[in-house]
């Protein structure tokens, strides 16, 4: 596939503080790419580099094979939906959406037709004459979406475009945006810190932290094969354990060897091991690879979430069966459910689920946990 946008070794710093550090990213034509990461990790900065509002200190930006480092924003064939909407306060809804076409001196009839189509698309029919200052946050956000789409961009940059919408509208707009992207064949570069949104909408997810890309991959890759402890922790729930790679396909943790599908590590290399809560089987204690005691159980609707103490390490396990607190259970893990990762700067940052209880649900939220770790 053709690359529409390529970022090569991009570095940016503000006031001597490094914001982006050696960013490499290729975006294919028609792809839905999501930049996912905690607040302040440099997502908006990356978009602004593509949009032309920031010139990187180092590295190159290519549109196709053309280097565009010094091309000003108005000459770039990309449009942005800004994080804070940035609507024009002196123009009504209609004129906001028409702005790009007016600049291009399009015909009146064409403008009217496009504006109408775009407003219908974002569910804002009948709002044409409204002043933007009288709109709710969600309505303003939808005007911003319509305004960018009306310009018929080749690449659309979306900076948390759904953040101000309520859950129902957000879900609808997610589907809507995805449909727009598919039917118009536009390349989307989408920024969010909502992992569910990222996983469900994207072709490719770019996980960022601290101004660096932690992992690029399909949503399934990112979820099933995280490359380091940060990604594992940030995406979904995960038990992150210290382990040692004894040999190819054989990893040891809690003093026990497990078969796994990973290879290519040094002999006896210390590693991080990830096991997702839903990938663990609970068996009779004597049949288990590990034995633990249930310390907490929470009903979550489709399943129970139980916390199991194994030699002082608290695991989270999702199961459809009820297990009473203080009951002793066995744990079995299939080889393909064990993900082995190289040690990284993030190793050891994310502990077990010992702080977990119903009241402290927030602590298990990857973002909050990450914030605390920084």
């Amino acid at each position: 596939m053709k690359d529409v946008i390529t970022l090569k070794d991009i570095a940016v710093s503000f006031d001597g503080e490094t914001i982006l550090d050696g960013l490499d990213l290729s975006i294919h034509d028609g792809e839905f790419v999501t930049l996912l990461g905690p607040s302040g990790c440099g997502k908006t900065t990356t978009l602004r580099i593509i949009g032309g509002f920031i010139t990187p200190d180092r590295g190159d930006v290519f549109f196709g094979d053309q280097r565009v480092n010094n091309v000003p924003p108005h000459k770039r064939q990309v449009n942005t939906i800004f994080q804070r909407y940035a609507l024009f306060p002196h123009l009504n809804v209609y004129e906001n959406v028409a702005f790009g076409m007016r600049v291009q001196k399009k015909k009146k009839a064409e403008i009217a037709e496009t504006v109408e189509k775009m407003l219908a698309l974002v569910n804002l029919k009948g709002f044409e004459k409204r002043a933007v200052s009288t709109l709710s946050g969600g309505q303003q956000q939808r005007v911003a979406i319509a305004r960018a789409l009306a310009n018929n961009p080749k690449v659309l940059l979306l900076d948390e475009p759904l953040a101000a919408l309520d859950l129902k509208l957000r879900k609808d707009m997610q589907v809507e945006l995805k449909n727009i992207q598919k039917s118009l064949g536009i390349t989307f570069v989408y920024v969010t810190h909502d992992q569910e949104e990222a996983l469900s909408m994207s072709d490719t997810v770019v996980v960022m932290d601290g101004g660096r890309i932690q992992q690029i991959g399909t949503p399934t890759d990112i979820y099933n094969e995280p490359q380091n402890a940060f990604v594992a922790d940030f995406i979904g729930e995960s038990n992150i354990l210290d382990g040692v790679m004894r040999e190819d396909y054989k990893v040891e943790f809690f003093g026990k060897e497990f078969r796994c599908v990973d290879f290519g590590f040094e002999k006896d290399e210390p590693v991080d091991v990830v096991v997702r809560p839903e990938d663990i089987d609970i068996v009779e204690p004597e049949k288990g690879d590990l034995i633990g005691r249930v310390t907490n159980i929470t009903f979550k609707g489709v399943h129970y979430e139980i916390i199991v103490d194994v030699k002082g390490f608290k695991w989270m396990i999702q199961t459809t069966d009820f297990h009473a607190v203080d009951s002793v259970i066995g744990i079995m893990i299939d080889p393909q459910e064990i993900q082995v990762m190289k040690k990284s700067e993030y190793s050891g940052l994310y502990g077990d689920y010992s702080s977990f209880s119903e009241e402290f649900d927030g602590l298990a939220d990857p973002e909050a946990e990450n914030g605390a770790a920084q």
Partner: protein
Amino acid sequence: MKKKSGMLAAPFGIWMALFTIVPIGIVLWFAFTDANGQFTFDNVREIFAFDPSKGETLWNDSFVSTILYSLWLGFLTTVISLVIAYPLAFSISRATERVQLTMVMLVMLPMWMNFLLRTQAIKSLLSESGLLNQFLGLFGVGSLEILNTDVAIVIGLVYDFLPFMILPLYSVMVKIGKSEIEAAQDLGANVFSVFRRVVLPLSVPGILNGITMVFVPSVSTFVISTLLGGSKRMMIGDVIESMFVGEAPNRGVGSALALVLMVLILICMAVTRLADKSESTEEGGFAL
């Protein structure tokens, strides 16, 4: 609720009554009465009076000509101030916060000095042996006779009233977010387009305020014109002043003049605002 806000507004109401309504009432009274307190249109008629037998015309020899002359100088002053202030205010509004503070201070600094002093300073700058001519002399340009001309008056007016153009402009421009400008660029607007479609329409309220705050005082100014324009021509403010404190005072005509001037200024302001309305409604943009 209503009662409370009414009470809060009371001091303002008293102020308005004492210093706005009453003076206008007095002006009206003087303008439409003669020396005996009898109602008359004579004072107003006097403004348009000229003596054809002496070869005088309405446009050259009545008070009307002085009024038109003052409006013209006021217009020039306003336009020049706007041309100077607009880019200045915009660049101040785009600077860092600290630079903004410093620049605003520098703009206001001269306002803290008595305007008579400032005008005297301008006078000595422009005089035959003044700094300006000395400077021009360095380049071999002969000494210019600026003092006692309309140019000197306009220079003085612009100098005195420029801050009143810069400050209202700055205060609306500083509210134009960087993000709105970026959004316009993002949608394909080049520098000129951003200016025409975003910056200019958003600064219109400041332009209108600035125009009002410069035009009104420069049209009705006095002293500045006598100091810098010499005794050759008087502006209407000087004439009105002379009607009250001069050698041949005539309160009636002075008041009538003040009244006519006020009406003319109100008409000018109304026209400006109407022009703005009709232009901003079409296309939502701002036609240049």
